[in-house]
């Protein structure tokens, strides 16, 4: 009798513990899943915020560009001065386009970067590519390496111990001129774990000099830098 009562109690307790155990395990699983969902949501939210800011910025700029064009069109319509305005606009647009293409020598404030190998390791194409790209990410407006203007078709390649840009052999030290906001560019190069830190490990000697008067020469007009002979424009 006593024995029977005891085993009944043991059985009941076993069942309770089993049920509890299942509940706890299930609970643990759902808590874990919930925290994972929460971290995904948090990440998703910050990405969405960035996307919204980017789109909003683009839209504001589009609005500006639309107004600019509307004004130009309105100016054409005011008779007498119309044609003269149109000519002036064409000159201005051509000048801006030639600067973007890299066909004008330009002047402005920015950062002068001198780079040379001080150890056994030589400066390779990928190192220069990385530097150039870091500058692009910091809103550089014009750039040159040893006075070779960087244009849309400029390549950076390894040629023996040195680099070749726009089909021209360069020698060290490499002097990169970058017109833009010198603070912004310097900060992104000096970032913790950034490329200057890496170059220090490679024993590259790098000096940064902000300057308010950098002159960057135009690309040579020899189809080596800016190549356009295999394509034709589609007029709007």
């Amino acid at each position, binding site marked *: 009798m006593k024995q029977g009562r005891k085993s009944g109690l043991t059985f009941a307790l076993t069942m309770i513990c089993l049920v509890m155990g299942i509940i706890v395990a299930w609970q643990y699983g759902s808590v874990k899943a919930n925290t994972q969902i929460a971290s995904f949501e948090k990440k998703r939210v910050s990405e969405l915020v960035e996307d919204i800011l980017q789109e909003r910025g683009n839209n504001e700029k589009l609005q500006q560009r639309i107004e600019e064009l509307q004004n130009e069109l309105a100016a054409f319509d005011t008779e007498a001065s119309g044609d003269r305005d149109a*000519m002036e606009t064409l*000159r201005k647009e051509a000048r801006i386009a030639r600067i973007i293409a890299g066909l004008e020598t330009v002047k402005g404030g920015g950062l002068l970067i001198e780079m040379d190998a001080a150890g056994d390791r030589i400066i390779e194409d990928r190192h220069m590519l990385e530097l150039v790209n870091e500058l692009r990410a910091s809103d550089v407006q014009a750039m040159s390496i040893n006075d070779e203007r960087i244009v849309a078709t400029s390549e950076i390649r390894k040629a023996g111990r040195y680099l070749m840009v726009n089909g021209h052999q360069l020698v060290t030290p490499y002097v990169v001129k970058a017109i833009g906001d010198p603070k912004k560019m310097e900060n992104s190069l000096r970032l913790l774990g950034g490329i200057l830190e890496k170059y220090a490990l490679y024993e590259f000697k790098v000096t940064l000099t902000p300057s308010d008067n950098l002159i960057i020469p135009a690309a040579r007009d020899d189809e080596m830098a800016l190549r356009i002979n295999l394509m034709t424009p589609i007029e709007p």
Partner: protein
Amino acid sequence: MTRYRSVLFVVLMLFGIGIVMQFRTVMDKDTGSGPSARELAQRLDGERTEGARLLETLSKLEADYAERLRQIGENQGSGEFSSLLEARNQAFFQAGLTRVKGSGIVMTLNDAVTPGDMAIEDYIIHDSDIIPLLNELRIAGAEAVSINGERILGMTKTICAGPTILINSSRYPVPFEFKAIGDPQRLYDAMENSESVAVLRIYDIRVDIRTEPELVIEKYRSYGALGDLTAGLEVVVQ
């Protein structure tokens, strides 16, 4: 009996902890601070719709503008205006501000279908994968390049931003479609034999390359005033 009590005590304590944890996660969900992902997604959609509308307005205006310039040129018939217009159009072409056509290649990059044994980051495409590819296309003589329709200029930025990559001023997720105008066979061979492409393929990133007899590459989409791109530059006359 005391043994049963202590067992019961432990069991009930676990039960209690379970309930509290559940309660807390439910609470956390309800009191999430700031706007929810859904609200933000709606706002983003709104901005994108607005962007599409503005872009449409802009391209209409640009067409009107080009037409107007052509009319003035025809009416005047004078040499000066026509030659200015021609010089301006040539400069736009050289700067990448005009749509272009020619033969070349199309190369598509897509993340690995299923990640293997290495770190998950290795199976995803980063800006550091795209940058050498652009350089190799240039070495192989590419004259015009676009990624997902974004024309690549000399100062174009490509920045990795989470699962998307910022190109010029818009963010794009995978797949990345490169178009390059140049000598198709030379471009094709260069990319098929490229070390960067080989490395991507080791990580099961899908890289498809094909030649195209005729390709159209979009012009650089300029947000803001044209002069914004050159605001810090002054022309030096030599």
